[in-house]
């Protein structure tokens, strides 16, 4: 199943946030969206996932989702969006409750999702008992339970400290490695984008337009190698030089607002 951003523009009142953004995410592909703060990255993701109606243009799907997918387009949120009154397993089961699945089938999906994120021992814990990294693992586990075709990840690591970020990044690389799931990964962190994505969509400052779509020249599987790391660093620098001046302008603008 492909996800297509088709001439998406969006305004909040007088404020133009996105301007004619188009790109296509093929099945199993990982696309990162980067850009200066306030460039509409998260807005674009909300539109792609059907949580926000664009002022013009549309998010479109092409092709059928995998037959076993319960929620083809599934979000992973920056602030985790866990139900604080529910345990880890109840949070993971939450999106399954309204489906036709039997309790045993739900249980099997929950068990599998918890196991894939290393949460099995924490299934009875409440979110407030967990560290930020574990909370986001619950968010990922919940997303995996519905067997998504495409993960829509909205700065999933930016609420976490750098060590936790590194650990979760390794999880993301592993989960997306087999190409069974695609992802749109919104981030302001160029290193995350370069490590995870097949292509990087670079947005301009508000109103966000596509400045460039950069294809990462190394396959995802071989990015751990030393030679690859240097190339990725060069790529990051190249993208940073694209957005640096705009990032400075964006920062000034935010401070004046």
């Amino acid at each position, binding site marked *: 199943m492909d996800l297509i951003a088709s001439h998406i523009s969006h305004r909040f009142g007088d404020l133009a946030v996105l301007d004619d953004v188009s790109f296509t995410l093929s099945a199993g592909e990982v696309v990162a969206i980067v850009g200066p703060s306030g460039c509409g990255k998260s807005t674009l993701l909300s539109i792609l*996932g*059907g*949580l926000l109606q664009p002022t013009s243009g549309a998010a479109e799907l092409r092709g059928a989702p995998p037959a076993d997918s319960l*929620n083809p*387009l*599934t*979000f992973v*949120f920056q*602030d985790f*969006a866990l*139900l*604080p*009154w*529910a345990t880890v397993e109840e949070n993971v089961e*939450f*999106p399954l*409750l*309204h489906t036709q699945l039997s309790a045993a089938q739900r249980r099997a999906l929950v068990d599998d999702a918890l196991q894939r994120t290393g949460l099995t021992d924490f299934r009875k814990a*409440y979110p*407030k008992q967990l560290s930020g990294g574990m909370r986001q693992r619950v968010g990922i586990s919940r997303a995996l339970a*519905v067997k998504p075709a495409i993960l829509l990840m909205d700065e999933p690591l930016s609420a976490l400290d750098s060590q936790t970020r590194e650990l979760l990044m390794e999880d993301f690389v592993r989960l997306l490695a087999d190409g069974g799931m695609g992802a749109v990964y919104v981030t302001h962190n160029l290193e995350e984008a370069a490590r995870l994505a097949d292509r990087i969509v670079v947005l301009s400052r508000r109103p966000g337009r596509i400045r460039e779509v950069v294809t990462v020249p190394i396959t995802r599987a071989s990015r751990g190698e030393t030679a690859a790391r240097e190339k990725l660093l060069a790529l990051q620098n190249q993208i940073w030089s694209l957005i640096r001046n705009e990032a400075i302008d964006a920062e000034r603008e935010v401070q004046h607002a």
Partner: protein
Amino acid sequence: MLDRVPAADMPANDEAPRRVRFRGAGFVPASSRFGGWIALALVIAIWQAAGSAGFVNQLFLPSPSAIVRAIYELAVSGALWQHVSASLLRIGVGWLLGTAAGVAVGFAIGLSRLARSVGITFISALFPIPKIALLPLLILWLGIGEEPKIATIALGVFFSTAISVYSGVDAVPRNLIRMAQSFNVPFATIVRKVIWPGALPAILAGFRITASVALLLVVSAEMIGAQYGIGAFVLQAGNLMQTDQLLAGVVILSVFGLVVGKVIGWLETRLLHWR
């Protein structure tokens, strides 16, 4: 590489080091465990001593022992239960009716744009009315029995409940609702599994307020016109200058308030343990 300087290698300096003065004391909102009880016991003891020694006129301020005696005599004679049960019935029925309606209307306002625009207008207009002022009108409408008293309590409880419920619904984090929508969770399930538990803290906090509103209104209503009930009893005792009886009634009201507060506190720890 980090520079590691062994203690012996520290730059030579003959001056003796001074300890950094601790300046972070106080300003912690903590109370000592028995302080409150000791203070209460102390006040009662002084009160009793002043009464026993004859410093205080027993007519104007009976001593604690006289109040306890009055409560005991009321209990033995059966009058206590007669008054308490009459008040409890009014509070119970009135509070339940007001709460049920308030929760329903509060949820409607919290969830529906139409209900919000209509509901908030009426609530803003009617909430500030002291509900006891409506008792005479309610007596005209409903007769002189239990109904107008119960209706007064229900009205008072209703408005506070409706306001705390819709504020609670409004305070449910939007990101949780968006999360549920992103998983195609249907409206009814979102209300049951996200909005209801999310609003529950505010609803229970509202119960504390409505319980005291109900107590206030039951006493007021009983003072205006009732044969039995704590309010009627206190008023009667005052008219007859039986201040020990009067204060016995006040103590019973205070105990009732405390018990209700404890019950709500228990509900909160049971239902909101996740906080």
